[in-house]
């Protein structure tokens, strides 16, 4: 039996890349890395938001101290009650007939503290220790009592002196007022940079595995009889990169939705701006690293060898992440008022312009808002130029290695052979 030859359209390079990217996308979006990764990340973000709310809740709940007064110290009860709202706690005062009664109440836990002695020299009985806030309040009341007594003895009106003291205030001139956005920018940038590092690492790894899996299953021999190596490589990078971008997007949106209501981020606008910068650097950084990872992975024939083959590239990514601290810390310092040492500032600028470091480092600097326009544009141009270089070099290594099975191929051989 034979089938009539159906019309076959010529396969344009664009359609070839589209078909390959579509397959990668469809496979990976159903894959473990995507589904489990997204669920875990969103769950962690939700957990973080819940914890934040709980912490805030605890801060807002003020503690109440039950304080008993006996003897002449009873005179301190009213002033303590009056002062407590401004001190951040509540008190429940009670008169205790005898000190001995009070002691047993403290021991039993029905009183937090017993104040005995005189108003000028109170004696405090507690079970295990005294709350610092309560202690400070009592000390201050006792001092005021001594002061008032001395003032009266000197013939001055304590009330008049007190009102004079209250009138004293500090005038503050802020030369560079820090806005919430400035303070949060570098922190958001740092979080974004970590996400970039993580995503480039994870999805770059997926590319490397995918390249070698095709080589190991030999399906690449069939594929390369109908598409060119560069098309196959590009299709993989596009398809897998899109999955990474979607996951990054879902996590970023969930992060904003969960975290904004907690009030941790004062200005969601700044965060959205940082996410936009992050997406751009993810795309550029991913393409740069994915091409390098795919090229080095194609040198080996077995999936177990991928991680050792890609060590130089993954080390580069780890170094980038370590450098992120060098960049992030002065960036945070700079906006929170600390002076940037000139040497470190220059180092930071230079490092963030070196293409393999640029995506992660620039996302921090840009979020901090300290990057001049020309530097930003230069860094983008440099990364694009290095992507072009890596595409040429990577496609050459890939094309020369992808059909050579068996032992690991030397990088120099992969570059030299043109067959």
């Amino acid at each position, binding site marked *: 039996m034979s089938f009539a030859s*159906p019309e076959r359209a*010529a396969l344009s390079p664009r359609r070839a890349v589209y*078909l390959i990217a579509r397959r990668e996308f469809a*496979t990976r979006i159903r894959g473990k890395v995507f589904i489990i990764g997204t669920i875990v990340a969103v769950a962690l973000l939700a957990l973080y938001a819940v914890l934040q709310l709980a912490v805030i809740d605890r801060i807002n709940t003020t503690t109440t101290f039950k304080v008993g007064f006996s003897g002449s110290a009873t005179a301190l009860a009213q002033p303590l009650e009056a002062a407590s709202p401004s001190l951040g706690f509540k008190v429940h005062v009670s008169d205790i007939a005898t000190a001995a009664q009070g002691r047993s109440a403290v021991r039993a836990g029905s009183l937090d503290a017993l104040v005995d002695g005189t108003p000028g020299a109170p004696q405090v009985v507690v079970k295990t220790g005294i709350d610092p806030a309560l202690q400070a309040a009592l000390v201050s009341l006792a001092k005021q009592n001594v002061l008032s007594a001395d003032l009266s003895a000197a013939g001055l009106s304590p009330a008049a002196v007190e009102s004079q003291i209250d009138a004293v205030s500090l005038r503050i001139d802020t030369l560079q007022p820090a806005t919430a956005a400035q303070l949060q920018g570098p922190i958001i940038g740092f979080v974004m940079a970590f996400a970039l590092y993580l995503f480039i690492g994870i999805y770059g790894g997926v590319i490397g595995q995918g390249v070698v899996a095709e080589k190991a*299953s030999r399906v690449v021999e069939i594929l390369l009889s109908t598409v060119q190596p560069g098309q196959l490589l590009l299709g993989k990078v596009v398809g897998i990169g899109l999955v990474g971008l979607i996951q990054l997007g879902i996590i970023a949106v969930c992060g904003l939705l969960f975290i904004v209501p907690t009030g941790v981020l004062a200005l969601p606008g700044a965060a959205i701006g940082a996410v936009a910068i992050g997406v751009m650097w993810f795309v550029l950084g991913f393409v740069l690293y994915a091409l390098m990872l795919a090229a080095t992975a194609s040198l080996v024939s077995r999936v177990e060898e991928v991680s050792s083959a890609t060590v130089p590239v993954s080390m580069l990514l780890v170094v980038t992440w370590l450098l992120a601290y060098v960049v992030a810390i002065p960036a945070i310092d700079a906006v929170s008022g600390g002076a940037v040492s000139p040497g470190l500032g220059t180092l930071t600028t230079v490092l963030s312009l070196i293409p393999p470091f640029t995506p992660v480092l620039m996302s921090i600097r840009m979020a901090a808002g300290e990057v001049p326009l020309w530097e930003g544009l230069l860094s983008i141009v440099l990364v694009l130029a290095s992507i072009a270089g890596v595409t040429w070099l990577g496609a050459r290594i890939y094309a020369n290695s992808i*059909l050579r099975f068996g032992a690991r191929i030397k990088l120099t051989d992969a570059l030299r052979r043109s*067959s």
Partner: protein
Amino acid sequence: MADRVLEIDRVSKRYGSVAALQELSFEVRAGELFGFVGPNGAGKTTTMRIVLGVLAADAGEVRWGGAPITFATRRRIGYMPEERGLYPSMGVTEQLVYLAELHGMRAPDARAAAARWLERLGLGDRGGEQLQKLSQGNQQRVQLAAALLFSPDVLVLDEPFSGLDPVAVDVMSAVLREQADAGISVLFSSHQLELVEQLCDRVGIIRAGRMLAAGSVEELRSGSAPRYWVDAPGAAAGWAGEVAGATAVRVEGSRTLVELQTTASDQVLLQAALATGPVREFRRDTPTLSELFRSVVTEEPAA
């Protein structure tokens, strides 16, 4: 149709110091089943990879329809590599459709063709399964479907029969025959020489990168010196050696296998045999492809 010929013209390929192919030439005509036989390492797989463009030749040319083969014409070749290769965890139909689309088919045509070929190869109900869930033989059928479903003009199959059970061998043979009958050039390699002999229109015997003999099995036979089995019980030992141009190749009891030079006459041999007494058997020995293969491969000095 006449110009639809796959020509391999003086193709050479070296791997370092090893000459894998040395000016190898042969052609596969439209509608022809060409069997490619040779010892391991002779260069069969290398030749096929060069035809498919997954390997570049150092010298020589592969032509299709008289023109050097290009990337576009290669898309019209159905290929089954020596090492089977498909995506293990992808669905059977899904990857067939994908591969057909990569060969330029539109999705609806690709889906229809995948369904037809799976049905034809007895895998009609397995399309939804992952490839790795199928047995080795069934995976090979899927591999054949992958090579066939975009209706190629040429089929290049590296060891399509290896690892198949007899039923699958019959299915594969029938499919290849019918593809050739439909006008497709089919080139395949195999170590199963009996099968090649039965199935192929022409055979090429390759060793150490050189084509030693190519043609129909009949033509290959005619190239070798004719041999006759003669059963002459009354003959003295060594009788055949006295006939001009005749050599005794083997003696089995009263039977002698005699090889004649092309100039010698079989009638002279018969008369010489009759002169010794009664002759019970006088039969032309037609060598099988296996015998031809052995004699060709061992006679020629190694390059």
